Structures are given as structure tokens and as C-alpha cells.
């Protein structure tokens, strides 16, 4: 998997501490991790091991207590709030386990929203959003209110929105956590397609058969990486 070029993501000795009263809790105890352009990585590990914390740092939602984070060869560790917001908008697409969509508005407006923050010209927004919805086979739901679609559809809308700014990185924190098995596999085949088109994907999951769609599987325990292996047995998505 290793390329000769510089990694897309480079975590160097990342430590994250949380202060609760007088006690300091180390959620991450020194994470070292390189992820290259085009990889599909699954992060696994027990609850509370630090998976989400790691992803938040990678996604510029949070900053580490110490250590260096290079994204595209740029040190973003000391970025300001607004600079981090810009990174999240342009470089990263998020899919969460729940609460992915803005209430009181349509599917289409949800997908358009990142373009509003990214200063994409108004007239370009709807066509681009529709294109993304087509990609996840939901163009017929464009005008539906975000609370009038199913759980699997919500995740697909979230994927469409995550891709709309054409980010270098797609981050998904247990995207299938609330879905039944059939729908989960449908979502995973989407990720696999996207990865085949060259997108870098990092996915957090508890379930081995979900992780099996990825090319590389990382196990985290107590804030440290315990294993980091290439998946030689990638689950092939059922052809649609």
C-alpha cells in the first residue's frame, strides 16, 4: 500500500488529554499513523479506546494536546478556529453515526449547505448537489424534508454531502451503527465504489464484517495503536 509520495495524513506522537476537575485523562497516548492518498482504512477497537478522538483530530474538529498532525504536508496543529473550519469545509467530508442531517430543511438543501460555507457560486450549488445525490441514487428524494427519509437514505445523503466539496478525505464514524445488516452492506459498497474512484476513506466500526470492506485495518486500545494490518481478504461488494 505504501506510496513513495508523502502521506496524505501523518499523525506523529499524538496525545490527547482531557481534564476533569483535578484528574487528567489521556484518551490518546501517542498515536503514530500515516495514511496515503487512495487508502480505505478501517479503525476498530473497544468502546472508549479513542477511535472517535483520533478521527476528530484527523478531521480538524479537535486539536491534539501534543504531537504533530500533517495534513497534505501542512502542519495544522496550531491552526486557528477559522482555518480549521476551512479545512473541514474543503478537505474533509464527515459521515456520523447519527444526527447527520439538518432538521427543518430538504435533502437538497442539506447537500448544498457546505457549498454555502465554501463560497461556491449560488447557481452552481443545486446542479452539484443533484450530481452527488445521483451518485448515491437519491435524486428522487432531493425535495423531501430531511426527517421524511429512512435511516439508510439519511446515511447516503450524508455521504453525498460529505463529497460535495470534493474533499481529499472522507471520514465516517460508525456510519452503519444504526442500520440493519442489508442496508449496512449497501452503504459499505458505496464506500468501496468511492474508494475505487480514488477517494481516501477512514471508517470507524465495531463490526469485523464492516471493517472487512477496507484495505487496511487498524486496532486501537487504550489510546494506542495495537495492530495495523493490510486486509488481504477484502469483502467484494455485491454488484448493483
Amino acid at each position, binding site marked *: 500500500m505504501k506510496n513513495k509520495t508523502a502521506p496524505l495524513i501523518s499523525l506523529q506522537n499524538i496525545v490527547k488529554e482531557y481534564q476533569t476537575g483535578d484528574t487528567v485523562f489521556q484518551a490518546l497516548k501517542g498515536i503514530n499513523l500515516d495514511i496515503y492518498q487512495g487508502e480505505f482504512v478501517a479503525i476498530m477497537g473497544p468502546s472508549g479506546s479513542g477511535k472517535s478522538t483520533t478521527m476528530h483530530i484527523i478531521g480538524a*474538529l479537535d486539536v491534539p494536546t501534543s504531537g504533530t498532525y500533517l495534513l497534505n504536508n501542512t502542519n495544522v496543529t496550531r491552526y486557528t478556529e477559522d482555518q480549521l473550519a476551512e479545512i473541514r*469545509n474543503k478537505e474533509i467530508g464527515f459521515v456520523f453515526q447519527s444526527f*447527520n442531517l439538518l*432538521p427543518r*430543511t430538504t435533502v437538497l438543501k442539506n447537500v448544498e449547505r*457546505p457549498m*454555502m*460555507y465554501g463560497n461556491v457560486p449560488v447557481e452552481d450549488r443545486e446542479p452539484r448537489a443533484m450530481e452527488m445525490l445521483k451518485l448515491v441514487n437519491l435524486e428522487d428524494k432531493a425535495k423531501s424534508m430531511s426527517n421524511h427519509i429512512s435511516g439508510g437514505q439519511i446515511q447516503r445523503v450524508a455521504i453525498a454531502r460529505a463529497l460535495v*466539496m470534493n474533499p481529499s478525505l472522507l471520514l465516517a464514524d460508525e456510519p452503519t451503527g444504526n442500520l440493519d445488516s442489508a442496508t449496512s452492506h449497501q452503504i459499505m459498497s458505496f464506500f468501496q465504489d468511492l474508494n475505487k474512484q480514488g477517494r481516501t476513506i477512514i471508517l470507524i466500526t465495531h463490526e469485523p464484517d464492516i471493517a472487512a470492506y477496507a484495505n487496511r485495518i487498524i486496532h486501537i486500545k487504550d489510546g494506542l495503536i495495537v495492530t495495523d494490518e493490510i486486509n488481504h481478504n477484502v469483502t467484494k461488494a455485491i454488484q448493483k
Partner: protein
Amino acid sequence: MNYGEILITALLSLKSNVLRTALTMLGIIIGIFAVTLILIISQGATSAITSQISSLGTNLLHIQTNKAIPLTFDDANAIRQQIPNIVATDEIVNTSKTVSANGQSNAYQITGVNAAFFNIYDMTLQKGSFFLSDDVIANSTLAVIGSKVSSDLFGTDANPIGQLIQVGNRSFYVVGVLNEKGSSIIGAPDQTIYVPVTTAMNTILGTTTLNSIDVLVETPEQVDLTANQIKQLLLDRHNVVDPTIIKNYAVYTSKELLSTVSNITRILSGVLTGIAGISLLVGGIGIMNIMLVTVTERIKEIGLLKAIGAKRSNILTQFLIESVTLTVSGGLIGTILGIGVGTILSHLLKVPFLLPITSIVFSTVISIIIGLVFGIYPAQRAARMNPIEALRYE
């Protein structure tokens, strides 16, 4: 960022909780409603009074009595003889008495005037005639009565001319009935009985002091000069040297009367606007409260917005637009209600209705300011939220 889109977003979120939105806006609605109504009524009243005063003519002087300088007939004569450019003067006394006639009895304003009065104030008759200068000199017991007095005492059909009316223990012959005139700055002529000033002073009041003297000057340009000359004459005649009395002694011109009236309405609307201001303050605090609730309710949403790239300024603008939308909608509703009630009220009060353009602009600006001032704290709270904590909030 596209403000139109944010505005639509704001409206949608306000629409999603109509009752709460309405209750929140109530303070602003009441405040702006009050401001609008006050401005409509005070503008109408001022314009009504102003046109009344102007219709009297700007060449009228009004000399009021003063405890230090009691006005007498001799003063009036001296003014007539020594001050140039005077067209007419009129000595006036006022009192109120129970009047009976035709078996009816009622309290009315009794005003003692001389014959020039009817001319100065443009009075017209529906029946009979005015009394004349000779009648005044002769202490005649003649009366010119207002239209309401006539209909009260004699009914609408009867002819009161030549009838007797009893004022105190004196009887007066009705010689004239005035046309209806409506109330104005000079009082309520419809409900007044005009008798010769001499008779009023000697037999009704038993006094030698006048209440006031009206002086009609040839041209408006001469008014100020004449007022000063009269003032000096009166001070000389009464040997006044006390500087505070001199300072406070005024001869009113119509122009001064106008500014007094507009001062009074200004003070009145100032007080009422103050009360409306308190309502707006309370309304603003209500807005702040509801915006804080809204921010708390939408913490997860704010986290999500930050995750997809919203900057602090984006979140700040969104919530500010929302609070301003709240206050401006409230302001608009208040303005519309104010104009509606103002129209009805001006009709009832018989004052002209003037569309308060300034008040509409003022209300809108005030609403925007309230929205910004009371919305900024909740909006900042939303904008400064840590994205992770916001996303994790349950």
C-alpha cells in the same frame, strides 16, 4: 455566505414553533404598537391644534393676567391709545355658573367679552345678532349663546331669541345663537354663554380685574415689536421693578402659543415613549431568553454545521439574523396594529390621521437594533461553541 438563504433558514426555524415565536414577539409588538399609536395621535393632535391656532391668525396677541400685575380696563384703554398698529382689542373675563332657563338648569362657561371678540375669533350666528359696543358700555344684560347651550336649554326646534336665561341671580336676554364651532384652543364656544364684559365683571363676578386682553395687530410682522411695547407699557403702568416678575411676565403671541402646545405634546409623547421603551426593553430581554433556549436546543445542529465547515462568523450571522427577523416581524405587526388602531382613534378623537412615515422608519430601525443588541449574546454563545462538545451534546 448568502443572506437570503440564511433569512429563509431563520424564517423556517421561526415557523417551526409558531406559538413560541408569537409569545416571544409580544413584548416587541406591544412596544412598537404603543410607539406608533402615540406618534399618530400626537401628530394628529398637534396638527389639529396648530391649524386652529393658525386659523386665529398669526397677528393675534394674548395678554394674560398675572398676580403681580392685575389687568384692568384702564390697561386695555392705555394699550388702545398708546400702542400703534392695533386693529382691535378685547377684554375678557371667564367664570362658570349654573344657568337656568325654560325649566332646564345646567352649568356653563360664562365669558365676558366686548363686541370685537366675535370678529377677532370669526364667530358666526345661526340666529339673532351679536351685542354691540354700546351694549357693552351700557352694562346690558344681553347674551349670545353657543349652539349646545341653545339645544340643551331650549331644544333643537325652539327659537331662543328674546328668551330669558337666569345666570346666578341675574336675567339675560338671548340675542344671538352661534353656529356650531367644535372645541378648540380657545375653549368650547358651543357650550359657552357670551355676555358683555362689563356686565360680567360688575354684576356676575364683582371684580375689576380682567382675565386677559386680546390684541389684534395690523400685520404679523408687527407682532413681536407690539408685544414688547405692550409688555413695557404694562410694566411701567404698574411700576414693576422686581426683575423676576419682569422676567416671567409674558405677552403671548400665537406663535408662542404654538410652541407651548408643541412643547406640551412633546413632553407627553416623551413620557409615553418612555413607557413604550420599557416594554421594548422587556421585549428585548424576552428575545434574548428565547434565543438562548434556541441555541441550547440546537447545540447538535451547531456542531454539525461546524463539522461541515461553518465558521464562527457564519453561525453568528445565522443566529443574529434569526433574532433580528423575530424583532422586525414583531415590529411590523406592532406598526400595522398601531396604524389600524391609530386610524380608528384619530377618527374618534376628530383629529386628522397622518401616516407616520418617520415612526415606521423609526420602529424598523429600533426593531433591528433590539434584535442585534439582545441577539448578540446568544449568537456569540452559539458561534464560540466547541464543535466536538456540540456534537456530543445530548
